[in-house]
């Protein structure tokens, strides 16, 4: 079973939800509320917040690799040079940004 929402194409700008975090949550706090870009759809996986309670983890969720430029995460950072973070995030944590080109 796959959740009904259409898959987000690579290149989609997304904002990570602020919350609420699940009891067992695989979306780190430092990424919540931040904007990044989908760089890859890894596939569909069982929901870890349900697996954590020894449930089957269904329905499965799409899992995306999302890239966040360093400046989007730490605007006050004094560290120079190009840098980014890529995290694997489940679809229910991602909101497509309003200003995606053909959104």
């Amino acid at each position, binding site marked *: 079973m796959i959740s009904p929402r259409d898959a987000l194409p690579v290149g989609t700008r997304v904002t990570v939800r602020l919350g*609420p975090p699940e009891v067992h949550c695989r979306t780190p706090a430092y*990424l*919540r509320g931040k904007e990044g870009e989908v760089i890859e759809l890894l596939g569909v996986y069982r929901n870890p917040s349900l697996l954590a309670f020894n449930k089957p983890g269904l329905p499965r969720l799409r899992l995306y690799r999302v890239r966040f430029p360093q400046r989007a995460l730490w605007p006050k950072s004094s560290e120079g040079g190009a840098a980014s973070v890529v995290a694997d995030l489940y679809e229910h944590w991602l909101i497509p940004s309003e200003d995606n080109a053909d959104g």
Partner: protein
Amino acid sequence: MTSERKVNDVGGLDGGSIDRNEHPQTLFEQRVDALVMLLIHPEIGAFKVDALRRMLEQNSPEDYATLGYYQKWVRAVRDLLIEQEVLTPEEIRVKLAEVRARYAEGGRER
């Protein structure tokens, strides 16, 4: 910034200097590691690795910071085996007393 941060959710915090000292795994560490890998393997499936993580995330900030990695693991395994009704607290208490007595006498493992 954001809502709730569990003890394990440390990304972006001020972490201090990185201690790069290493030691080969001790027998205790190897055994706990092996125990976990076997128990989460679908063949046995006593609990999911996600459930182990949930247990580890329930450590107090003090315990999370001060207990050894595999100390936290073995305690989480105990709690999960009880939660999943594989073992009872009473069984563990009795066995632990027996093992402790055996070692107090200078005995080895059976």
